[in-house]
């Protein structure tokens, strides 16, 4: 199968704070060497620590911000304002995004109907048709068009606004949809309804999704493949079943273990991640997770682990993996450590 989307070595740093001369005093390492591929008709779930660069990656893909390094290819084509690249208006027809902040991403002065019809009209759909599309889509995300078309964003609840954003992204009939926490403000029944809608559209139109979420149960249900990020980097990726069943990276394990139990009477004993929260301004050397990792050895702070194949398409970056180039070194150090503790 062909890749619809191919991302190579994406990097984005943000300046933070300015000195007297307007030079940045600090830099946030938001996205660092991120690479991945998405095949047509598949859903890639993206999970990871808050602040690890998920939304930044999404905004880079949409060209809302430009990367410092790296390439983004859609059907093998590069888009952007740089000479020789394909125009961004063409990109927007192929790829749309539902933003994490549903409030900030709707124009407060447009009614719901105008907001949804806006995109199709820009792309040449006739006024009447665009309005009809808006109504149909509202219906499909579970909002009665008769009640909502003339309302303004501030007159909606959080979950209603989120669904308007989903309708708006779908209105352009894109091939790729990035959903950044797009169902997190919905109650579980409406969430189920929207997830069913996304699955139906995927089947009907062969859509490809990038699904960013903190809800690991939902990610497991909706995704074909999952990518786990930590501090700007991809630490593990692979087919969903494999990754959930046999997670290879200690961060992925800690993450999966922190999900609250859904059954009454079972408050879990959580393995709370120890150590300081990661600092994207001065990221740790070597493996960025090493200061919080219970398995960390000397090599983990000295060298960056390369991403290796665990099995099939399942990959991870950790020296504990026998496939890792630094594995021998890791084991040797462990033996030394074991000897000294005995």
């Amino acid at each position: 199968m062909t890749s619809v989307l191919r991302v190579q070595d994406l990097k984005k740093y943000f300046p933070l704070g300015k000195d007297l001369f307007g030079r940045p005093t600090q830099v946030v390492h938001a996205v660092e060497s991120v690479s991945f591929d998405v095949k047509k008709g598949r859903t890639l779930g993206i999970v990871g620590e808050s602040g690890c660069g998920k939304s930044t990656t999404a905004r880079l893909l949409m060209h809302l911000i430009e990367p410092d390094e790296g390439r983004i290819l859609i059907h093998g084509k590069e888009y952007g304002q740089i000479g020789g690249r394909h125009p961004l208006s063409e990109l927007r027809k192929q790829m749309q995004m539902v933003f994490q902040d549903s409030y900030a991403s709707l124009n407060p002065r447009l009614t719901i109907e105008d907001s949804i019809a806006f995109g199709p009209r820009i792309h040449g759909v006739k006024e009447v048709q665009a309005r009809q599309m808006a109504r149909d889509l509202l219906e499909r995300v579970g909002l009665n068009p008769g009640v909502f078309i003339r309302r303004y964003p501030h007159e909606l609840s959080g979950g209603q606004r989120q669904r308007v954003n989903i309708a708006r992204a779908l209105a352009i009939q894109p091939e790729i949809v990035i959903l950044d926490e797009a169902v997190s403000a919905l109650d579980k029944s409406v969430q189920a309804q929207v997830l069913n809608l996304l699955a139906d559209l995927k089947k009907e139109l062969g859509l490809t999704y990038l699904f960013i979420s903190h809800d690991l149960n939902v990610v497991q249900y909706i995704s074909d493949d999952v990518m786990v990020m930590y501090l700007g980097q991809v630490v593990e990726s692979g087919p969903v079943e494999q990754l959930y069943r046999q997670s290879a990276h200690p961060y992925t394990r800690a993450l999966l273990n922190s999900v609250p139990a859904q059954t009454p009477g079972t408050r879990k004993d959580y393995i709370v991640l120890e150590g300081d929260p990661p600092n994207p301004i001065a990221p740790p050397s070597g493996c960025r997770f090493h200061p919080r990792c219970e398995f960390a050895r000397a090599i983990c702070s000295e060298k960056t682990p390369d991403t290796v194949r665990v099995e099939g398409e399942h990959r991870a970056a950790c020296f504990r993996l026998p496939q890792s180039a630094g594995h021998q070194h890791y084991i040797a150090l462990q033996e030394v450590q074991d000897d000294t503790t005995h």
Partner: protein
Amino acid sequence: MTPLIEVKKLNVTFQGEEGPIYAVQDVSFDLAPGETLALLGESGCGKSVTMKSLMRLHPEHKTQISGQIQVAGQDLLSMKSSALSKLRGKTISMVFQEPMLAFDPVFTIGDQIIEAVRRHEGCSQADARQRALEMLERVRIPSAAKRLKAYPHEMSGGMRQRAMIALALACRPQILLADEPTTALDATVQIQVLLLLKELQRELGMSMIFVTHDVGVAIEVADRTAVMYAGRIIEQGPVQEVLSHPQHPYTQGLLAATVHPGMDRHQPLPAIPGSPPQLLRRMEDCAFAPRCPHAQEACSLPLPAVDHQAARWSRCIAHTSA
């Protein structure tokens, strides 16, 4: 024990383009000192509107509020605006569903927390700064000292949410209203923030109302839960009991629709069919009946009143008429 919050027959009606919108109808509940109530319910059922009423945050000219709200022994609805601004942030404070509404985009996060602390506690700039820093650290924002100088748009969604929790807690309120406060957080940070809230609750004897869609979160933090549908509380009781033996068909449907680990990915999820009623009239009958698998003819009659003081109740004739 006298309750810290007492809400009686709260009604909130908005003036919409096409007539009134009855967003909250006859909502009554109590909250005891140190207690946590989880508010669950359908998107658009009135959870945020109820919470905002407890701080009187609705624009007065477009909103009609009736009923009674007592907060820490004071009558909120008749309170003067000077008394109100003392109450807000100090006695009762709120974590909003939309972080961007809590912060002014043109000031740094630090300035805004420091300002709030100074206004309510009248302490020095240095002390207020210290408090702001301490709060950002406690909600586990990385490199907190530097983030004091960050603007809201320079933070990730989850950091903004934590900064807002820090702002809400900075003046050590007696009551915290938290509107989906952890939806933008990953599981590891979420559990840390929930544990922090419980710790502060023990430390300060704080009460909480927690709006969430995550049953797991409700189980983790709450003593009691109230489930809302179409502007009303339809079921209420101890969190473990309600979630393990839901009485109201809406609560049952809601729990059944929740995505569980290990579900068959190729089957559609069991969403409740149909959609909620428009809130264009007050409803004395059961608003859920048109979608209810157990609906009978009697469901279209006005429902008998429930005893809101009861430890456990639900607004369904299968349980009220017995």
